[in-house]
């Protein structure tokens, strides 16, 4: 039977602790271009550990044999999973694949039916290569494993990482590296493992084969054994639980309507659904969102920060708070050079183990802003002593990297420090010569990248606001430092020849590279109105802006390379920055065009948004098909800039100053969570209708000063005439 063309878009199934990656052609296989070569990312992930490579199923009956993709008839998404229909040799097969959360794994079932002929023996052959290494180590597949059979289950271990396979049918044969294995214990190289399951399929009766692969941390497998057997015995409850939690979350998210831009409305829904796929609670008490799929599926401090802004806007304050706590738990309290950690620093990456690393120049700076943001959205409670101490340590970390004369924070040298620290310690050594670790961490932006300074300024301001007045006047000191940093951005980075901002200052001299990062200064409101517009319009020229988004470096720069990750590729997050800055600058149509560029992605990419695209054509390259960076900033811009919302539930105050295109006639938001209440907004060019459901009155400012809106009574506020 000829196989239909597989869907072009990846299929990603996730629970809070596991993921299945597949291409929709019938197996858990997902070949993806990565760093210029093709890598098959199909398989099972559990607890941020890549458990398996591609997980394939073949069928054998008598002398005949086939792979599952060869038998594919059709496929569809179902509630909580993915289903495919197959036909082969008189059998009708229905396959269901789902990521489950009760145990961190993926369940796969095949229901066989035979409508004619006689009862027949069938063998299901399930095969995969074990990986058993956290996804962060992208290039390695361990060679040596420990295998053990236990009753009808199989366990595989690689150091402290492990997986188990349990099925509803007892296996008849095990094949290790294509040779028969009697079972028991084995230690050594494993390139492929195949398990054969015999089935007797009578006519007119459905026979099911189900298999669950789960794991991550080896120590968590044994306690999950009974649950795993329950899931493989009857998986519908576990699948339904994941689907139910997703549906509940989506039902609680705000509803945005843009009657004049239905594609944007659809993109918002897709982005929310995509963001939900990144939610993760992989074990060891960790809560957060993974950075992306396939190869950044761990909790990265920087990526999480960008995502939590959107999580706050969609109203999931509890998840944001628990995520912040997860990151603060790994705040370094002392110098740990082998992990790149300095006192007060927050981790670059965290995954179960717990495994964590430091060594970025920006991750720590996001969290004062997030703590402040959480407080403004939720209304409280005010940060307790632990959070305030963590906050002070973050700022102290930043102050330690700041030149007191200029107020500029130093970035760079972090990876080099780790390399130096480990130089004489290991029997073999490996490393990556990254000179710098800003958000564009594969290029050299030392010593004072402009966006890092903007972030430092904002972080200081947020921290000062959070601690308020104190006997040692720390907030005054932080505000003064923030002012000095802001002044340095305005005076030392101004690049008049380009009408833009320099990318960095190195050795005291400005670095004349044109990157989108300068737009963050616009969004922070640090530039005067005229120069703000100049910068935004310069970024819109075609050396930086393409029809598919913003390049990470101007195409006129000698260092530009269209396939270089941070020296030429187009990034969706950079496009979101451009939209943000354009809307701040009052360039509504330009901002709208940038947003449309991102919105179109969701439609073309079946609900996902790629990490990055080539700089010379609209084609993903070296790109995760889903990245929080590509989803969350887009969502945040819709709320903060297109709708122009500012919230402070402590007061409570809601400011609204929309920047919709001039042709729009209506837009609305329902179910926007605000403190302990919800607010609905209905916009027309003439007025804003506000409906507040919550305690007390809500002060709403549409540009003419705050107006008290009583709970339960819609209130129309006219737009002030300018």
């Amino acid at each position, binding site marked *: 039977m000829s196989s239909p063309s597989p869907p072009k878009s990846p299929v990603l199934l996730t629970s809070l602790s596991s993921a299945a990656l597949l291409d929709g052609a019938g197996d858990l296989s997902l070949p993806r271009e990565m760093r210029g070569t093709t890598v098959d990312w199909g398989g099972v992930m559990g607890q941020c550990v890549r458990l398996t490579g591609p997980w394939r199923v073949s069928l054998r009956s008598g002398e005949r044999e086939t792979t599952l993709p060869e038998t594919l008839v059709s496929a569809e998404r179902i509630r909580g999973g993915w289903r495919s229909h197959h036909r082969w040799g008189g059998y009708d097969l229905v396959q269901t694949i789902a990521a489950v959360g009760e145990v961190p794994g993926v369940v796969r079932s095949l229901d066989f039916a035979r409508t004619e002929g006689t009862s027949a023996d069938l063998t299901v052959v399930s095969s995969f290569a074990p990986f058993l290494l956290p996804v962060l180590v992208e290039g*390695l597949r361990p060679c040596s494993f420990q295998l053990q059979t236990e009753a009808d289950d199989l366990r595989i271990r690689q150091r402290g990482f492990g997986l188990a396979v349990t099925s509803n049918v007892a296996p008849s044969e095990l094949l290790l590296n294509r040779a028969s294995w009697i079972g028991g214990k084995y230690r050594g190289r494993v*390139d492929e493992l195949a398990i054969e399951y015999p089935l007797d399929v009578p006519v007119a009766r459905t026979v099911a084969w189900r298999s669950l692969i789960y794991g991550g941390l080896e120590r968590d497998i044994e306690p999950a054994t009974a649950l795993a057997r329950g899931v493989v015995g009857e998986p519908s409850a576990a699948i339904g639980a994941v689907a139910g939690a997703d549906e509940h979350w989506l039902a609680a998210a705000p509803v945005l309507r843009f009657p004049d831009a239905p594609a944007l409305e659809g993109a918002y829904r897709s982005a929310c659904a995509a963001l939900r796929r990144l939610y993760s609670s992989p074990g060891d008490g960790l809560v957060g969102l993974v950075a992306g799929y396939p190869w950044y599926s761990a909790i990265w401090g920087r990526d999480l920060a960008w995502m939590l802004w959107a999580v706050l806007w969609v109203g999931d304050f509890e998840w944001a708070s628990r995520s912040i706590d997860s990151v603060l738990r790994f705040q370094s309290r002392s110098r740990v050079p082998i992990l790149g950690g300095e006192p007060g620093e927050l981790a670059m990456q965290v995954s179960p183990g717990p495994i964590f690393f430091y060594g970025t120049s920006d991750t720590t700076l996001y969290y004062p802003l997030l703590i402040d943001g959480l407080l403004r959205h939720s209304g409280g409670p005010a940060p307790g002593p632990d959070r305030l101490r963590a906050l002070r340590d973050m700022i102290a970390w930043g102050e330690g990297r700041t030149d007191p004369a200029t107020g500029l924070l130093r970035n760079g040298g972090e990876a080099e420090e780790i390399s130096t620290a480990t130089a004489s310690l290991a029997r073999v*050594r490996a490393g990556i010569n990254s000179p710098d670790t800003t958000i564009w961490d594969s290029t050299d932006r030392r010593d004072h990248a402009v966006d890092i300074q903007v972030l430092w300024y904002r972080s200081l301001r947020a921290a000062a606001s959070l601690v308020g007045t104190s006997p040692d006047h720390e907030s005054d000191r932080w505000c003064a430092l923030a002012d000095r940093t802001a002044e340095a951005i305005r005076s030392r980075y101004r690049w008049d020849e380009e009408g833009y901002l320099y990318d960095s200052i190195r050795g005291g001299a400005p670095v004349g590279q044109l990157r989108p990062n300068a737009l963050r200064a616009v969004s922070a409101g640090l530039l005067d109105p005229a120069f703000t517009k100049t910068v935004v319009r310069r970024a819109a020229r075609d050396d930086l802006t393409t029809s598919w988004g913003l390049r990470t470096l101007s195409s006129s720069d000698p260092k530009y390379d269209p396939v270089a990750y941070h020296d030429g590729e187009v990034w969706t997050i950079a496009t979101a920055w451009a939209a943000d800055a354009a809307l701040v600058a009052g360039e509504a149509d330009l901002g709208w065009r940038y947003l449309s560029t991102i919105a179109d992605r969701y439609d073309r990419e079946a609900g996902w948004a790629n990490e990055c695209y080539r700089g010379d054509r609209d084609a993903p390259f070296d790109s995760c098909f889903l990245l929080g960076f590509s989803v969350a900033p887009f969502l945040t811009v819709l709320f903060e800039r297109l709708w122009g919302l500012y919230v402070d539930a402590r007061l409570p105050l809601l400011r609204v100053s929309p920047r919709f295109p001039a042709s729009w006639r209506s837009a609305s938001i329902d179910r926007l969570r605000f403190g302990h209440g919800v607010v609905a907004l209905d916009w027309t060019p003439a007025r804003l209708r506000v409906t507040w459901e919550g305690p007390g009155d809500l002060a709403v400012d549409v540009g003419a000063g705050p107006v008290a809106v009583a709970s339960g009574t819609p209130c129309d506020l006219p737009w002030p005439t300018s």
Partner: protein
Amino acid sequence: MDVGSHHPGGLLSLLRQGLTIGVQFGTQSLEALLWVAQSIEEGIYADGSLRRTPDGIAFELDNPILRVGAFSDLSLRVNGTQVPGDRVRLRSGEGTEWRLGSSIRRDAPWELRPGDRSEFEVQGSFGHDTDPITVRIELRTPAIPPVVWFEFTEKPVQEGAAR
């Protein structure tokens, strides 16, 4: 395998840092970090594969060097000395074709995926008998330009000797 010299100061520093991690984050973290470190340490170089050949040395890798990708540049140093690319040949394993290190270019990259093995043969004179040899490999891909490197020091076995 000779693991090279461990600097006492470095070991004490490691011990202090290990204790710090254990005290602040728990011994489970310390253990898990070691799992990763050991997986990397033992996952790349094929233990005991360094051997002398009639023309120089040979060794094997079980995995890419940290990163996957299409690599456009290969640089190899033995005992600190750069070996010209036309004196390095490599292949993906038995039965695959050898190619010269100098043939690796942007338009003819060397592609490595997780679990891909590599065999290297290097021509030259590198010390004597079982003197320890330090090999450093550096790779670069246009997709992510920073150099990825790997270095090991080991006493080679003579060609034909059992590992």
